[in-house]
Every structure is written in C-alpha cells, then in structure tokens.
C-alpha cells in the first residue's frame, strides 16, 4: 500500500492550530503545580496534586493536541469529510479546555460541583467530537490499516470518556456506585482504555503512515500492523471483564496486562528497528522525539515486568507514578511534541502554497521553526523527563522537576507561536500582493 495525502479535504488552518497552541500551556501549568505542591504531590498516584497534574496532561495537553491532529489527519489521510470542522472546533476546543480546568481544580480543592461541571462539559464536547469523527471514519472510502486503527482509537476514546464521566459524576454526587462497581475497578478500566485504547492506539495508527513517510524508514511489516492493534484491543476487552458482576479472576488479570505490555514493547522495538534502517542518516528533532518516546515505552514495559517480579518494589506507593511519568511525558508528550514540530511547518507550507501559488512561493519548510530552537527545547524536555523520574525516587526534587517541565512546555509554546506568526505574516503578504495586483490597471 502506498501512503497518500490529499490536502484538498484539509480543514481551515485555524481548526487544528487553536488546539495545538493551547495544549502546551496546560503542560506548563501542570509543571507549576508540581513545583508549588512539592513532594506532597508525589506521595502517591491518589494525591490531589498527582490527580490534577495527570488530568491537565492527559486531557488539556494530550487530548487537545490529539483532537486537533485527528481533525486534520482524518480529513487528509482518510479523505474523510468532517462535518463543519470550524463549528466542531469552535465548540469542542473551549469545552475541553474548560472541562480540564474544572477537573484539575476539582481534584485540587475536592469540590463536588466542579466534578459535575467537568462531567457535563466533557460529555458535551467529546460527545460531539466522537460523533463527528465516527461518522467521518465510518463513511470514508479509504482503506488500510491506519484507518482501521484510527477507528479502534476513536472507540477507545469513547469508552474512556463514558467511564470518565461516570467517575466524575460519582465523585461529584458522592453517590457511590460501589454496589455495582468499586471505584478502583472503574479507574482501572478507565486508565487502561485512555492510555492503551485511545492514546497508544492513536500513536500506532498514525505511526504506520508518518514513520515511513517522514522518517524515510521501510514500512512496518504487515503482520505487525495487524497483530499489535488487534492484540491490544483484545487485551483491553479482557481487562474490562472485571466490570462484570461476577468480576474477573484476579489471577489472570496480571497475565492480561503482561500481554498488553509485551505488545507495546513489540511496537516500540519494531519502530526503533525501522528507524535504524532509515534511508537518510540525518536525525531531525521529530525523529529523536519518536526515538525517545519508543525508548520510554520500552522502559515502561520493562519497569512493569520488574514491578511484577519484585512485589515489594511494585507495591510501593510511588511505583505507579514512575510508570505514569514514563507513559505521559515520556511516551505520549514526546511523540506529540515531535509531531507538532512536523505538522505545523508542513501545514504552514501547504496552506501558504495554496494561497500564493507558484508566483509567491512560501518560505522553505525548514525556516518555519528554527532548528536550533526545536533542538534546545527537545533537550530540555528530555532533561525534565529525567528530573521527573528522579523526583519520583527522591521527591525533594519535585521543585526543579516541575520548573524544568513547565519551562519545556512554555518553550514549545513559544516555538509554535513563532510558526503561527510566520504563517500570518506571509498570508498577509500574499493578500497584499493580490490586492495590489487587482488594484493596478491591466
């Protein structure tokens, strides 16, 4: 199968950009919360600070960036018609932003009303987003594994949102659903679908196209493109059996997670192997971000195995935080940052080219964001990742880790704003040239 991109279906540039330009700001806020709360935030995964930071990162950073990318990607790669993308973005973007702020504040202040507001805004925003996306992905005539995996990812988001809204509603009303499910069971299934069924599935679906195309690697082996998403989906379904009234036998639950971790590790190894066989020796920032993300994914799988093998280590209150840092800033934010540095210059170039034609060609793609600025931000991101991992081991490092992470997100924001400003400047120049040629006599 040859990869193809069709930009005739692309939504207006303002649709993805509003998501991209908001996302890093909330990463910066999460870092400041860590710096402000200090070691108390790292006591366990259940501390108010840890829960607030986690949701600022997964919803306001990751979900914003992923929704923006998906609106662009589905139109361009699947050639799918997104229903009124401008309207969808105008509704979904502010609601997701508000919902995540409600949720993070609800965790920090333990305010019931804010949990309810968060549940309501997420249900509205993501209900609309999921409906539009599901219709577009089901109706598209395009075929290929990327499309199938994107459908699975959208289903994964649906399950995550339904469970998340139930959880937020439960916390908001202090109505215990414990007679039906324990809170922990709901959280276990919510987290698994959010990280495995939505975020990782989306990364997998996107990687089949972008890794070979932009990193000039060979294509993923066909058997692997089928095995990993199908296996992951099966693992998530089996994991969800704990929601059944009879519950699932505890004994085989760790076997299910083991299978999931092995699949994730296999995907990481395959991507690193393809990267090692790339046709171009040069390694740009997107390439290094992906490599870092895949190493973090391997580290995550290896850490989980270690925690299973050494229960006294795995049972420590901060063990889940170690896994969380590897998964969120390590895997997903690294991929997202790397992709933003590729997507925004690419979109700038294509939209400007379309407006200026051959008469007023846009600046070179490599001029859209200075390479040195991207590379320096990337180094700070990985340094912040190391500091965050160190802070899990020695919580006294929470302050420098939080500040470094915050600074990295702000620097990313600055670099992305630079790209957006360059787009606006050049677009204005094209409009001025068109206006002056229309005004001058023939």
């Amino acid at each position, binding site marked *: 199968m040859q990869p193809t991109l069709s930009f005739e279906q692309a939504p207006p540039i303002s649709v993805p950009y509003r998501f991209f330009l908001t996302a890093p700001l909330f990463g910066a806020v999460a870092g400041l919360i860590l710096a402000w709360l200090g070691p108390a935030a790292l006591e366990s995964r259940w501390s108010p600070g840890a829960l607030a930071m986690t949701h600022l990162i997964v919803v306001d950073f990751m979900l914003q960036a992923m929704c923006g990318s998906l609106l662009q990607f589905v139109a361009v790669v699947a050639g799918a018609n997104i229903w009124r993308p401008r309207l969808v973005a105008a509704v979904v973007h502010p609601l997701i932003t508000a919902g995540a702020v409600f949720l993070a504040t609800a965790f920090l202040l333990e305010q019931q009303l804010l949990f309810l507001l968060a549940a309501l805004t997420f249900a509205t925003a993501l209900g609309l987003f999921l409906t539009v996306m599901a219709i577009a992905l089901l109706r598209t005539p395009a075929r290929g594994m990327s499309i199938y995996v994107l459908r699975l990812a959208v289903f994964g988001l649906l399950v995550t949102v339904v469970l998340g809204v139930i959880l937020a509603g439960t916390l908001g009303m202090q109505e215990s659903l414990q007679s039906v499910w324990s809170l922990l069971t709901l959280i276990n299934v919510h987290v698994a679908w959010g990280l495995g069924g939505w975020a990782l599935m989306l990364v997998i679906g996107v990687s089949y196209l972008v890794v070979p*195309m932009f*990193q000039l690697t060979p294509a993923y082996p066909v058997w692997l493109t089928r095995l990993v998403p199908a296996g992951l989906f099966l693992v998530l379904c089996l994991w969800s059996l704990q929601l059944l009234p009879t519950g699932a036998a505890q004994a085989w639950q760790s076997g299910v997670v083991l299978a999931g971790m092995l699949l994730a590790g296999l995907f990481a190894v395959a991507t690193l192997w393809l990267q090692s066989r790339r046709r171009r020796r040069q390694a740009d920032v997107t390439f290094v971000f992906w490599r870092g993300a895949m190493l973090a994914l391997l580290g995550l799988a290896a850490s989980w195995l270690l925690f299973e093998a050494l229960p006294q280590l795995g049972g420590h209150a901060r063990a889940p935080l170690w896994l969380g840092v590897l998964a969120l800033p390590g895997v997903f934010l690294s991929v997202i940052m790397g992709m933003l540095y590729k997507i925004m210059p*690419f979109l700038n*170039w*294509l939209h400007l*080219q379309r407006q200026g*034609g*051959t008469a007023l060609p846009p600046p070179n793609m490599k001029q859209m964001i200075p390479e040195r600025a991207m590379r320096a931000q990337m180094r700070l991101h990985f340094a912040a990742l190391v500091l965050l991992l160190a802070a899990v081991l020695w919580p006294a490092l929470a302050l420098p880790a939080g500040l470094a992470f915050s600074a990295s997100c702000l620097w990313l924001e600055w670099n992305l704003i630079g790209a957006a400003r360059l787009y606006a400047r050049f677009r204005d120049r094209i409009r001025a040239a068109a206006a002056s040629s229309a005004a001058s006599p023939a």
Partner: protein
Amino acid sequence: MPEPRLIDGRGMEPPEPLELAVAELGTLAPGEELVMLLNCEPLPLYAILDRSGYRYRSERRADGSNEVHIQKA
C-alpha cells in the same frame, strides 16, 4: 528537445520534493519536461499543477515508486 529536468525525491522528506518542484515550475520553458521520482502518489502536487496550469502524467515503476512527467499546459 531539451533533456528533462529530474527531481529524485525518493530519499527526501515531504514536502521537500514539492518545494523543489514548485521552485522548478517557475522556470520551466514551454515544451520542457520536469520528471519527478517519488515513493508516494503526490496528490498535493497534482492539486498544485491543476491550479497552476501544468499537465502531468504519472507512471508506477516496477520498484513501486512513481514517475511523474510535468509540462506546461
């Protein structure tokens, strides 16, 4: 007949082949041909060519890559 100009974009990262093609199109003389070798079907390039008044034909090569021949319409 002049030698066709060639852009071998198979080792390039998108949209570098497109950037080079757009730069070449501006100086392409009538009757002169630009040939591009690409790993993928360049749909964005076709859209640019349609809009800018160029004609093109694309052939799939044995190695799976695409050979696109472009001339002024």
